[in-house]
Structures are given as C-alpha cells and as structure tokens.
C-alpha cells in the first residue's frame, strides 16, 4: 500500500483480538478502509477517539506498534469490462497470474434498489434439470440457494447450471473453496463456452476466514455494474454461504456482541438479506440472479444459517441421493421455487402446473408405500403401481444427469401417468386430460 501525503498514519494499537484491533485515531469515517502493516482492515466501531478495526486477513503476528494507514474511503473496487475471464481474491487482486488492470473505482456494498423501480421477474431460466425446470422453475432476478450436505456435488451442479443457462455474465463468489474446487470451476469454465463470461472472486481455505466477508459484496457490486450499467443478464454463484455466515459470527463474537441462536449474530437475517436482495430485474432489461450454496450440518435446516436463508431467498433446492436409483436428484418435496408461478403455464405449456403437482403428489404416495413396505405391511395394487411410477419418474426425469427440454419433461410425465395410473388417480383438470391423455 502506497502512502499518500494526506493519509493519516498511526502506530499504537491498544488492543488486539483474533479478528480486530483498537487504536486511538481522529477524523475517521465509519466503514472506512484502512491498512495495518499492509493488511486490509475496516472501521467497525468508533467510540470517542477509540477506533475498532476488523482485520480481514487476521491479526496473527501484529504488534502494538504496527503502522496503521486510513484510506479515507469506503470499500471500493476497480470495476469494468476488463474483468471478464479473470479471477480475483477478496481484495480484488488477480490470482490467475495475469497482470493487474486499471478501471474506474466504484463503491462496494452501495445503496439498495428502490422497490418501486424493480420490475417483476418474468424470464424463464432453463437448466435442463427437471428437478429445477419442471418442479422448481427458476426466473431471472431470483435468488435461491442449494441446501446440501457437505459431501454432495453441489459445486458440480452449480457449474453445470451456469454453463447451460443463457446469461451474459457469470460471477463466481467462492468462500472457503478448496483450491481444488477453485481449479475445478476455472477449468470447467475454460472448457465450456464460459470463459468469455466468467469473473471470479475467490477466497480459498488457504486464506483467512474473515476475508470471505468481502467476497459477496465484491461479486454483487460487479454484478450490479454489468446488469445496471450494461443491461446484461448476470448470474451470480455464491458458494458456500454457510462459511460466510461462520465468518460473521467470528467477528461478532470478537466484538463481544450477544449471540442469538446457534452463536450467530442477532443481525444475521439483515446481514444475509442485504446480499441476497441484490438479485433484481432492472427496468432496462438487465438482471441479477443469485444461485447460492448453503451447506447443512447433518441435514439440519432449523440451524440459524439455513433457517434465516430460507426466510430470505425465493425458495431452496435440496440435493438428495435417491436411494431407489442411487443418483442425485433435487428433492421434489422440500424444494421450492417461489417465483415459478410467474412463468409456469405462461412461458411454458399450460398443463405444466397441473402435471407438476400431480407427479409430486404421486411421488409422495410412493414414499408412503415405501414406508409401509419397510414396516412389513402388505402393499395394495395402487401402492405397487405408484412405486413403479416413482422409480421411472426418478430415473428418466428427475436424475440430475438427465438433460431435457421442458416439453419433453411434460410429455414423459404424461407417458408415465398413463402407463401406471388411472385418470382419477392422477386428478388433473378435465381439459388437460382431454388434450394429453390420448396417444
């Protein structure tokens, strides 16, 4: 960090914790950026002349006489078209070995969109995955996380969707990614047609956890530039938001805040909402869609992180291994896309909503039948048929490696209805039965 003449320099820290330090300083602005012996830090508390800084890369090895330089600026980033195809760290420095490029500095984590200026999301995003397109249809401008156990292939699914989605930019915010996963993302975008579209902000497990706190703001401010200034369709991938929230709790504990549920800060909801709400459809056509990952521990969705996330995002997609076909599917019961109503049966075929619901109802009946079987009860004729339906439905439609157009998904589901069930059992509006039950 170069010193500039007007910048104030201090060299007496009064208190150092694992993530913060305190010193006496004047004329400092709230949320201003500073550097402590070259380490990036941000003002998080000012009481009189006592300023508390959050040190992103950690305070290990800092001494009480460290040099502190205040920048006089809130967090900013040189954002521009030159970023395309590049990967950066939490501070916006390139990590891909190519040189630093200049651009106009823009404030990171700026103001919110006026809700009356938002446009209701209305463009379908297709992924080829039936668990999404058929049952939990996504819409541009939506924000939705995958809820997944740590051992599930969530990053693979994320990159597959990113490559199939028809968007102008893909912005990857990696938090606590293993180096291997970073390389995986990088090479899959290199191989796919993604290279010309990708921008990555990466914090790996080798970096300090507190640094992660900068990643989503960087990614989303960049997304805002492309979506708002350039009217582009931007897809933001945030993985893993659980590790982001963990970093929030580290900092708040260091600041002696009273923790609420699961040792998370009481402001967790607002902290996460501030990020996720950056998803938007702008009036001039640009949009930001956020696909995130929230890893669960032991599948517990009542934990504060997934719980608050679910209250903020527009649905959630559960990854689950379907035992009957031993493949990963998107769980039709617990997954939900809250914006699907805006497109299904409108941008898609009019039988879509009813076919979707009927298939899920039958799938639920199959789950009941399986429980019966496990408890040693005899199965009725209906139970047997619905089990067959469910197996075919998982294998031919739901499995994550199946890639279909939505019309094909609908046709195949009708085909399975007819193969195993009666019209009453399927329970779809007569007009659709008349149209699709024939052939």
């Amino acid at each position: 960090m170069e010193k500039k003449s007007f910048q104030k320099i201090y060299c007496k820290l009064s208190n150092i914790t694992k993530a913060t330090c305190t010193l006496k300083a004047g004329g400092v602005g709230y949320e201003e950026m500073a550097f402590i012996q070259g380490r990036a830090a941000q003002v998080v508390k000012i009481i009189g002349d006592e300023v508390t800084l959050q040190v992103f890369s950690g305070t290990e090895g800092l001494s009480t006489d460290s040099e502190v330089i205040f920048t006089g600026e809130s967090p900013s980033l040189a954002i521009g078209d030159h970023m395309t195809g590049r990967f950066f760290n939490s501070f916006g420095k390139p990590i891909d070995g190519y040189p630093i490029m200049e651009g106009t500095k823009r404030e990171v984590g700026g103001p919110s969109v006026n809700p009356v200026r938002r446009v209701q999301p209305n463009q379908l995003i297709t992924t080829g995955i039936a668990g999404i397109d058929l049952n939990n249809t996504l819409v541009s401008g939506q924000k939705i996380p995958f809820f997944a156990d740590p051992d599930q292939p969530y990053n693979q699914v994320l990159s597959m969707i990113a490559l199939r989605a028809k968007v102008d930019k893909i912005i990857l915010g990696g938090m606590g990614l293993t180096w291997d996963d970073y390389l995986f993302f990088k090479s899959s975008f290199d191989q796919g047609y993604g290279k010309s579209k990708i921008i990555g902000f990466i914090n790996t497990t080798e970096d300090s956890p507190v640094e992660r706190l900068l990643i989503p703001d960087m990614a989303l401010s960049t997304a805002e530039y492309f979506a708002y200034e350039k009217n582009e369709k931007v897809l933001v991938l945030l993985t893993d938001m659980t590790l982001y929230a963990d970093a929030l709790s580290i900092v708040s504990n260091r600041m002696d805040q009273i923790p609420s549920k699961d040792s998370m800060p009481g402001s967790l909801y607002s902290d996460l909402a501030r990020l996720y709400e950056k998803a938007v459809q702008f009036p001039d056509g640009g949009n930001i869609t956020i696909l995130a990952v929230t890893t669960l521990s032991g599948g517990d969705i009542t934990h504060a992180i997934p719980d608050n996330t679910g209250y903020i995002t527009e649905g959630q997609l559960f990854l689950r291994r379907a035992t009957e076909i031993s493949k990963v599917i998107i769980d039709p019961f617990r997954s939900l896309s809250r914006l699907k109503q805006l497109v299904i049966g409108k941008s898609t075929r009019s039988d879509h909503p009813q076919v979707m619901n009927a298939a899920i109802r039958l799938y639920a009946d199959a789950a009941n039948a399986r429980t019966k079987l496990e408890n040693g009860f005899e199965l009725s004729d209906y139970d047997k048929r619905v089990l067959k339906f469910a197996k075919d439905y998982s294998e031919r439609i739901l499995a994550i490696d199946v890639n279909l157009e939505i019309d094909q998904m609908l046709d195949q589901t009708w085909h399975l209805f007819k193969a195993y069930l009666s019209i009453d059992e399927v329970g779809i509006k007569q007009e659709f039965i008349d149209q699709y039950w024939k052939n």
Partner: protein
Amino acid sequence: MSNNLYTCTGEITAIIANMVVVKANGPIRQNEICYYLHNNKNIMGEVIRTDRNYAYTQVFESTRGFKIGMTTNFTGNMLEAYLGPGLLTKNFDGLQNDLNKMEGVFLERGARTYPLDVEKRWTFKPIAQPGEQVLAGDWLGEVDENGIPHKIMVPFKLEGTLKVVEVAQANDYCINDTIATLSNEAGEIIKVTMVQTWPVRLPIKSYLEKLRPSKLFETGIRVIDTLNPILEGGTGFIPGPFGSGKTVLQHALAKQAAAEVVIIVACGERANEVVEIFTEFPKLDDPRTGKKLMERTSIVANTSNMPVAAREASVYTAMTIAEYYRAMGLRTLLLADSTSRWAQALREMSNRLEELPGPDAYPMDLSAIISNYYSRAGQILLRNGSKGSLTFIGTVSPAGGNLLEPVTAATKKVARCFFALSQERADNKRYPAIDPIDSYSKYLEYQEYLEYSKIHIGENWIEDVDFVRNTLIQGREVYEQINILGDDGVTVDYHVMFWKSELIDFVFLQQDAFDEIDANTSIPRQKYMLEKINVLLKTSFMFDNFDEVRNFFKRIIYILKQMNYSEFQSDKFVGFENELQQVINEKVKA
C-alpha cells in the same frame, strides 16, 4: 433548513453500526427525531435512550462515512405520519416517504419525499355546521377518495372542546387549503386544512369507546371463515416456517377480504413480494366494488435490504394510517408481513444499547411491545354513532419453525386468532397449509358471534361446522391407527372414516390461491358446499374392501374439486353436481 427550526444541537461521540451517540447542548426528548448533517445531507434518526445530555439514537439510514464530531440537530418532535386524502394507492417506505417520487433506480441516502400530493384537487363537501361544538376526530367534511368517503376531521392533536367558526363550501380544494376554522376554549382561532400529522408510536384515540367484535370479517378463505373465523376489528396471526404460505395467504387476504381500506406493511421481507403487489393490484378488481384493488390499498414497504431502524418504524407508520381511516368509520384491514422482522430490528438495537437480554437475546419488554401494538386494533364507536374497525393480521416467522420461540409465544398471548401453518401440509402441497385442528379462533366463544352467525349465515351453522371439525379430528386418529396396524389390520369402517376426513381436506380446506374462482369463496357458497359435504359425511356407504373405499372417495373428491373450479351455480357446476349424485346413488344402492 435553518437552525431555528431545531430545539437544540449536538455532536456525535460514538458510532456502532446504526446506533449513534450524540452529546446535546440542550434538553433532549425520548423518541424525538434528529438529523445528522452528513455531506450536506440531513440523515434522519430517532432518540431511543437518553443519559444525562447524551442521546442514544438509531439512524434510519446507513451510517457509512459518519464521523465523530458531526453536527446533529434535534427537532423536538416525535416521528409523525402525514394524514390526508391521497394516502391510498401510494407506496411508502417505513418513514412514509413516497417511493414513487424518489429519483433514480437506487435509494439515495438522505432523500426524502412528501407523502401526499399538494397540487391534486379534491371535491369537498362540508359536514359540520358553523356554531357546532366539536372534539378532536369529529368530522368536518368529506372528500371522495377513489369512491371512499374520506372524512376531514378535527385534528387529533387539538385538545378540549372547539367551536366551528366556518366550514368551506362544497368545492374543489388542495390538501393545504383551509377547509374550516375553529375556535378553542381560549378563544384562539385555528385553521384546519385537509392534512394533519400524528406521532406514529401513539394510538389515535378520538373515539367514544372500543366495542367487542361481533360481525364476521369475510375473507373468502374457507378454512378461516368457516372453521376459524376472524371478526371485524379482530386480531389474528399467522406463524409458519419459511415456505409454508404466510405471504401468499396475506396477499389473498389483501385481495379478497371485505375491507373498505387495506394497509399492507412489508416489514423486512422480500422486495419482489411488494413488486408483485405493485404490479398486480393496479390491474385486479376489488370483488366488492368493481374498482381497482390499488384504489383501496396503501403500502408501506420497508423490505429486508432497507435500513433496519426504519423497518422498526414502518409498523407504526402503517398502524397510524390504518387508525386514521378507522376514525372515518371505515372497515380497515392492516396486514403486516412479518412482525418477526420488526422484533429482530428491536433486538439488534437492544443489543447495541447493551441492554440486559431476554430469551434468545430479544429485549426483555418484547411481550409488552407486541401486546401494545396488537391492542391498537379493534372496533370503535364514534361520537356520531358510526362504527369503524381495524382488523389486524400479522405473520410471524418462528426461528427454526419453533412455535415456542419468544416472538411467537408473545404474539400468541395477544392475538385472538391463531392460523398455524404446518410444515407437513405445505410439504404435501395442501394449501393453504393452515392446520385445521391446531389453529383456533377465540371468537367462536363470543356470544355476539354465535348470535350473528345464526342470523346472517344459518340457524345450524355452528353445529354443522362442529360436525366437520369432529370428523377431521376423528380422521386424524383413525389415520394413526391405520399407520400402526396396516391397511388390513383395521376394518373397512376405519378407512371410510379416514377418507371422509380426506374429503373435507381436499374439497373444503384446500383452496387454490392461484385459481381465479377457487381462490375466493363467498359465504353462501361456503355454506352450500359445507352442507353438501355434511350430507356425504352422514351417508352410509357399502364397501367390500378398502381399495374400493379409496377409489370411490378419490372419484367424488375429483368431482367436488371440479365444482370448486366452476362458477357457483353455473351449468358447469350443476353438471358436476349431477355427476356426483349419480356416483353416490350407485354406491348407496349397491
């Protein structure tokens, strides 16, 4: 603004997120509004605690860039709402800025806009006569606000008995024109315009008395109106884990409920959900008046990404607007989604103030705050004999879906209707996911309501509803038995009992909020269907085995659902009804 508008000034001495401490050079008042001068903009805040000459304030916007020593001006006034014609159709933020008047796509800091239109002309008709004695809240005249008789009242802040000196003649006026002059007990002359202000944290109490609710507040939602009715001026809450249908249910209420005025407060929830209202309400018709829904609606939107302190204020702003319309003798509905986000805003601030935390780190007086808020709802009797009502329904978002958490527990103590959304029902797509058995309406114990229902719904209504409820309870017990003993382990009668309860569930409880016809069921139609179902519940059918039971009930459920999707008493409806009769006749004869 010049300095003499302010009661005193001060300097910032500490900044912790959106909590700022200011050392004042004069007397400071609890809950007064202050402005911090930042980059030539006035950023608004509120005093939430005082300690000697230090004011602990919450800032209604981001504090980024705030510095120690920054000038702060105190106004001496509490946060106030502007009340006058033109509130309806508006979209406000939590501090009542008109969001449509804000420039640009992004909300710029320090931007403020006036909530009403000063140039619009309203057609005024006088009500009061010169010489009349009046009190605060009495009607002086009225204007037509989108077909709603909007009363211009004696300002709520005026004290004592006043005398009407003059009332303007029928004509078109702007809100700031004088429409009446009054004289007070001291003989001072007071000019009254069509706009007045009121501190949002205090209830408007210009009425004679609060009455016990007695009339059904129709919502068109079967599981509410029939099984867990809410009354005009009543209170209810909707707790449920995420995705269980709280917001869809609130939107359905906003669209269909029999209210003359609807105030919606989107409190710390998703921006896209308010966008849905902005987009749809101007197009949808009010089923009762045929006017556009937006014309009876006002929205206070402080979504989750907007400042937290303003979120806390938003519920009071909305309540005050609702009370204002109630004082005109109107049937008002206030919907808040979600009151948990409001409680969380209180928690964030309480933690920053380092107050002693209660359960889950919420403030100790959370219960009292919630109960005070709910108590502002109610049916009122005005001095002129008219009645007005404010029905309040809030959602609660329990952490981890746990109904014992502090916000749910505190709300349960005060709200009279409990519409419990069940995760299991939502997972099974049995919408609305209101649990028919766990939910309750305390109004069913009100003698006033029992009498009302006899006259306005039906002589045997309460008995019919009880019969349905008991069948549901029985069905649930039988279901558990079947699960333990297996399909073959119980008699066919058990299956019949179970399927009778499923019939109620599928045909009556479940209701498709996205189907134009099914979404909204009138009371006569609810009665018609309930009676039809009751006949079926009381019929004995002959079955050989449980497969036959299931097939039969699936068949009649299917037909009954087709009736739900058809216009009431239309040819289509009657056609399905006849088909149903045939299917039943076969089974009864056999």
